[in-house]
Every structure is written in C-alpha cells, then in structure tokens.
C-alpha cells in the first residue's frame, strides 16, 4: 500500500495530537480548527465561506446562517465581527441570539449607537468563525 493511501486513513483517526511550541505539552489538531467561517454581505449572501450552506436576511440587522455539516451540539463558540464602511457609526457591534443556536443554525444581531446616543439595528457585512465539535 502506498504512503498516500496510508495517509488517506489519517483523517479517520480519533484525534491528531501535535507537540506544543514550547515542547512541554501537546495539543489536539481537530479541536483547534475552525469548523465554519464566512464573509457575508449586508444581505447575508455568502461572499466566501467554509462549511456553510447559506445566509438569511431576517430584517434590519438580523441574520441567520445555516451550517452545511452539522455541529455535534449547540454549545459551540461563535466569533463575529461587523464591518463599518463610514464614520457615521461610531460604536457598532454584533451579538449572537443565543436562544436560536442549534446544531445547524445560528443567528446574529447587528446594532450601533451614534454620537447622539441613538440605538438602532444596522445592516452590515458579516465575519464569523465557529469552533467546536462536528457531528
């Protein structure tokens, strides 16, 4: 059997362990990899992504994203950032709607506070990464 054939079995191993940079510990490769990421437009269209099926625009500042290969549970970690393309939005942020998170979907909410302390929902580009266990 060839080396490449042997290597093809590699992903089926239970886990892949790597030595740490400092040499005193090990770390698990699968646990350290992002399982989903995306760059999506203000309308939730996926400009670039990994392991994501689609985005859905639910209304102003309200988006849902569907994962292609399911997560193992709904307790994964979701990192997100929001894009601001002008100086008129001094404080912007994006939060996860935690109650909506499932193994196949998560929902986020964009908003901003302006210099006059007005709070409003906001349509902006999406940047996300998900860490956790795949099903």
């Amino acid at each position, binding site marked *: 059997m060839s080396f490449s054939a042997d290597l093809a079995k590699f992903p089926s191993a239970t886990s892949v362990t790597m030595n740490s940079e400092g040499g005193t510990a090990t770390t698990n*490769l699968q*646990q350290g990899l992002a399982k989903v990421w995306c760059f999506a437009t203000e309308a939730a269209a996926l400009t670039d992504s990994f392991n994501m099926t689609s985005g859905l625009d639910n209304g102003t500042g309200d988006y849902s994203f569907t994962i292609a290969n399911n997560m193992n549970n709904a307790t994964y*970690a979701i990192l997100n950032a929001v894009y601001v393309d002008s100086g008129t939005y001094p404080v912007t942020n994006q939060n996860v709607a935690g109650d909506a998170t499932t193994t196949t979907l998560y929902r986020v909410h964009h908003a901003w506070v302006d210099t006059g302390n007005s709070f409003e929902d906001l349509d902006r580009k999406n940047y996300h990464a998900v860490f956790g266990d795949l099903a």
Partner: protein
Amino acid sequence: MASELRVNTLKDASGNNSIATSVVFGGTAKAWCHFKGTETEALLDSYNFSSVDDDGTGNYGMHFTSNMTNALYAFTAGNTDDGAGSSMYACDITENTMATANFDVETFYVNSSTNRTDVDLTEVYMVIHGDLA
C-alpha cells in the same frame, strides 16, 4: 494504534493546496470555550480551559489546562445579546491580567442612556491563538 508523522509540508490528494505544517500548527487555536456567565458560572463546552470563576458582576477568571508559553497570545470573543433589543453587549480582557495560566475578562453593555456597565451574560465564547508551553 498511535502513529507518528514527520513532515514539513501537507498537500491534498491531487498534490495541490500545499501548506507547511508549521502554518497548521501555528494557526491552530490552542483553547476555546463557550461558558455560562449567569447564576453558577460553568464551561458548557471547551478545549484546554479547565475552569471559569466568578470575580464579580460581569467579571470572570479564565484558567487554561495546559499553559501558554507566554502572555502574548491572541484573544477573540463573542457573546449573546440575552434577547435584549436595545443594548449592545461585548466581552474584553481585563487590563494587566494576561498570564500564561489564566486571564480575566469583563462582559458589559452600552445603550442609548447608559455608558459601559458590567453585566453577567448567559453565553460567552472565546478562542485563543498563540504558543503553548
């Protein structure tokens, strides 16, 4: 049966998409977690975090299982909005608390009438990149 591979470069089955193993190792997150920050704090899911402790309203201590090699690691985070439609919530590192074994974070909100105010959040997410000890 455990086996060991010693390679400098990884490619896909077609010989494309070459990547140095040093990039794979360096770019792999060394810790992540999803924790509950209300009532009794708890790690709901995690890798290389041993515990989270309650240091006061919106203040938490995060502890690694395997230490980092220095206190210069990168921290990224996310959180829920707890269903509130009129406030923005966030999480950041508490100044001067980063150490190889642990760090502290604060969760807070701002809205149209309130400046930054620490608050306990039901769900907080964080990921750590850097060098393990």
